[in-house]
């Protein structure tokens, strides 16, 4: 069970994020919720690639007796996480820009008073 702590952390992060997205009414807090979910998913991807006692898959000054590939962690999930982090930054920037513009327009960030569109 102790080995599964990263997965439990993933689950908790996603739940916290979903809570913020569903229950919070401030746009900035909703955006924070999405960011938290995204951290959870990124953690999930990285955790998938871990090998117990593994080293980073970088050959520069690697200890001489390392088994290749058995003792190196998987590189693909790390690359995927890198990509998804950058995508997350991009989405975050766009959402914040929208929030700024909404604030300029309505003078508030509360979704209840912003919601002018019919459901």
């Amino acid at each position, binding site marked *: 069970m102790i080995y*599964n702590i990263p997965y439990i952390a993933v689950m908790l992060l996603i739940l916290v994020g979903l809570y913020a997205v*569903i229950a919070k009414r401030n746009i900035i807090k909703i955006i924070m919720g999405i960011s938290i979910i995204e951290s959870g998913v990124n953690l999930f991807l990285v955790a998938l690639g871990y090998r117990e*006692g593994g080293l980073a*898959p970088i050959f520069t000054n690697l200890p001489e007796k390392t088994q290749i*590939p058995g003792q190196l962690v998987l*590189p*693909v999930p790390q*690359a995927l996480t890198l990509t998804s982090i950058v995508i997350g930054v*991009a*989405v975050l920037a766009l959402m914040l820009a929208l929030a700024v513009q909404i604030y300029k327009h309505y003078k508030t960030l509360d979704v209840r008073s912003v919601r002018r569109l019919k459901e």
Partner: protein
Amino acid sequence: MKTRAIVSLSVLILLGVFLIMSILPLSNVLRPFGDPENSDMDDYIISNAQNDTGANNAVTSVVFDYRGFDTLGEATVLFTAVAGVILILRRYAHE
């Protein structure tokens, strides 16, 4: 006001149950943390990255060579976001 709280709470509980159901079997049965079961593709990359790309860093090899097209997409996402931010805040961009 009350109903919203109840709805969100129940949705959260459902999602929580769903996630627990989904993540625990993954970690316990199929792939315990720190012991990936299936790693053909990654082992191939680790063993051949230096020869294929000449780079010592296997992650960089994946990012720019094996999955280089993803990185082009990623750069495009950033480009898109900058264009989008400039479009949305265009009143302030040209000062």
